[in-house]
């Protein structure tokens, strides 16, 4: 039995690989999130997928690409599919109703990370949506004074560019692509994730969130104030809520409202030049 403990944004996940037919692999940025054994929030077992059996429950959500979710008992079943492997899913994961227990069955015989994308982010998205926090498409920067600056934007907005612009001016970049915000001890905290962008920056560090900047590439550097409703709407376009779960979507909106109420959320219009960072106080 091989057991690994991961901690992402304070959520501890125990992954047990007890099936000799499956070789669980951990490599890349996720290894920075491995922790010593600790009481887990989520317990996962990994097993070999002997024979694929179609789901019996209703289809809850179809991503239109690499995964689909079905009802199963009082929980859900997530199927991951890749055309290169075949028409049948190569990975079938079942979770209980609150995603605290699950089983991942994989049909691959080569060494493989059972929690590999998209399952890792789907699990975290569903856990966060149950009152824990929100994952944002963003670049998280911890300044030398310890404050957390979060730069948010969709693909191509300039997250990795922003990370590179900070260079030595940052104590640490916790991710150049995915950042989680949680409320802990009455404060908003910005957490790094294993999921990075082109600069491959990923760290388990966290920092108090001091400001959020919506990235807009422009011809001049400028910080623009935003009406709160606009800020929430623009942030929502950079989140990954479990859309099949209306309560989770509502919680995500309320979490964004909390962020907008508690810290400045502004539009960061920038020229891809380090001079733009002078605007970040």
């Amino acid at each position, binding site marked *: 039995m091989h057991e690994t403990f991961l901690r992402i944004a304070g959520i501890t996940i125990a992954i047990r690989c007890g099936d000799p037919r499956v070789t669980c692999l951990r490599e890349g940025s996720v290894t920075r999130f491995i922790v010593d054994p600790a009481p887990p929030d989520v317990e996962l077992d990994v097993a070999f997928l002997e024979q694929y059996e179609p789901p019996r429950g209703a289809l809850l959500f179809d991503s*239109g690409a690499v995964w689909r979710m079905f009802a199963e008992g009082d929980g859900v079943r997530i199927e991951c599919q890749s055309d*290169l492997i075949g028409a049948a899913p190569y990975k079938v994961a079942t979770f209980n109703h609150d995603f605290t227990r699950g089983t991942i069955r994989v049909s691959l015989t080569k060494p493989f990370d059972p929690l590999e994308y998209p399952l890792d982010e789907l699990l975290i998205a569903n856990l966060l949506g149950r009152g824990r926090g929100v994952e944002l498409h963003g670049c998280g920067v911890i300044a030398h004074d310890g404050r957390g600056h979060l730069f948010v934007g969709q693909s191509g907005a300039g997250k990795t560019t922003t990370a590179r612009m900070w260079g030595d001016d940052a104590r640490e970049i916790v991710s150049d692509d995915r950042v989680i915000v949680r409320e802990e001890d009455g404060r908003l905290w910005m957490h790094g994730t294993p999921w990075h962008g082109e600069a491959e920056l990923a760290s388990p560090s966290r920092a108090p969130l001091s400001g959020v900047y919506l990235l807009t590439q422009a011809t001049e550097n400028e910080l623009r104030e935003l009406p709160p409703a*606009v800020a929430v709407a623009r942030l929502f*376009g950079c*989140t990954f809520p479990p859309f099949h779960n209306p309560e989770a979507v509502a919680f995500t909106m309320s979490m964004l409202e909390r962020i907008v109420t508690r810290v400045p959320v502004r539009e960061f219009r920038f020229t891809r030049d380090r001079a733009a960072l002078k605007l970040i106080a």
Partner: protein
Amino acid sequence: MNEDEMENKKEAGSRKRYEKPVVTRFPLRAEEAVLGFCKSQGSHGQTQGQCTVPSACSSPGS
């Protein structure tokens, strides 16, 4: 004009002028928001669409 009519007129004068609600659309890229794509390690820029190999997905669509 009686007292009630005068009161109504006064209220109407101080009432905020009606403004028709305006719908503002904000972009939400469905394929990103639902974690529906990834980009291969080492690739640059957006490579949206089906993941080619599961193990190439450690760098999700960003």
